[in-house]
């Protein structure tokens, strides 16, 4: 059975957290504005942890949908 590679759509969804949390560090690594008493860079990362879960959830939907069609196909 050939290995099923991740679909391009799912890969793009996986790239989003890398842009938000890694490559863009110079843009968000600062203290101000302080939000709810917490410095901005920490708030930014916490926010992106939640967004990353959302991205993976979307990627999960993309990855599992075609699977079912494959199984039904003759």
């Amino acid at each position, binding site marked *: *059975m*050939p*290995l*099923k*590679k*991740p679909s391009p759509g*799912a*890969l793009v969804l*996986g790239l989003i*957290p*890398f842009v938000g*949390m*890694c*490559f863009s*560090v*110079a843009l968000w*690594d*600062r*203290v101000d504005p*302080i939000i*709810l*008493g*917490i*410095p901005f*860079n*920490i708030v930014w*990362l*916490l926010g*992106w*942890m*939640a967004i*990353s*879960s959302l*991205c*993976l*959830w979307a*990627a*999960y939907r993309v*990855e*599992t949908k075609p699977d079912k069609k494959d199984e039904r196909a003759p």
Partner: protein
Amino acid sequence: MSPSAVALTTIFAIVAMGSAIGFLAGVHRKMDLEQWTVGGRGFGPLLMYLLMAGETYTTFSFLGASGWAYSRGGPTLYILAYITLTFVVSFFILPQLWEVARQHRLQTQSDFFQLRYGNKYLASLVSLAGVAFLIPYFQLQLTGLGIIVSISSFDGIGRTSAMVISVVVLTAFVLTGGVRAVAWVSVLKDLLMVFAALAVGIGIPYIQFGGIRPMFAALLKAHPAHLTMPGATTNLGHTWFVSTVLLTSLGGCMWPHVCGASFTAKNGDTLRRNYVIMPLYSISLAFVFFAGFTAVLVAPGLANGDLSLLTVARQSFPAWFLGVIGGAGALTAMVPASILVLTAATLFAKNLCRPLFAPSLTDHQVGRLSRLMVVVLSIVSLYLAIYSSSTLVSLLLLGYAGVTQFFPGMVLGLYWKRVSTIGVFAGLIAGLTLVAVLMLSNQDPFHGWSAGFVALCVNLTVTVALSLVFVSEPRASASAF
């Protein structure tokens, strides 16, 4: 009772409870090699989740993260980014690896290299490097246990005796239970750990400063540059951040024990669903940082930042509650330590000794040899932990620099037909050599870049270039790729 007796009794009770759960999980199961290493490949979503979470929250993320928050400041934020991105990378690699593992009944990461590249020397090198780089990770957990016991005893018990006691308990636990025991102890461990993280992250700033907001305000007034990169360091800036986050997030699922844990899943979807949830779960980690930041002002001048969380907890809470935090911390070291030593021992026996020196060993004998290796590796790591003074984070970064060198061989092996044995072999040797040279000559970071990441780039280039030049002979067992 004296405060140290109260704290130590509480820790002991928690560890005993954890061990009891572990022993019970191991009873009444036939412990063959498959059951001991991959739990019979039958872990559903819940057990799987527990095992994964169990591997995420280690002493590193508890004492190490707060330690770096204390001693380095801003650069410690790399931990939040890398833990999250590790799950993103794992999402695209481990379910596929699981599929291959199921079809060919693989038990370890090296089994995959043997299957894909058909070269026992390459597979043995992967095993050897795997064992070698698991040792600093294991050593880190022992060091953490030593810190916990010695601080909770109000310095009454030395770190060395604390580590010796811990190793004995740990070894007994791994030998009887195998991977299933470890997964079940994670239930208690993770409940306590999330509770402890919230307690120290909210409670300590509240007790010392009246809340998180005034704590940060006071910290920024006293040390305005501490919370951004490079923080209290001179060389851990944004380049270091990006290269280290890439190194560690790509390497996160290259750990032999992470591959091993993924094989315990019932199916690939179980794994995917786990990775969806894990970043949300990891948010609780941020609270551990708050405790470290509080310690900057409350407990300045500690020789070793790794002591900061417990030192400030000892100043803030009554002894029994210090015991609860210490107990959570102790389980948080013991659960991953068990997985690490179990993986290293199995790799050594099954993927290094058997193929190279004793091909006639039966599975049963390999199982016995693995158990012996659990004892040997524990003693080696104990020795290293007693005589080394590295911080917890630098130990982990050393391990990552090493295991991430498996990335080209694993990922190209899964997704690129053309990748050849000679390419992967040469790339891996180049990467590992460069890591050894740069790390041993203290050149990490290398011109601002993480040394392990530089080595990974060289490794990948060599692998791809040689694969394009030399075409591998087609092999029967590689037909699945």
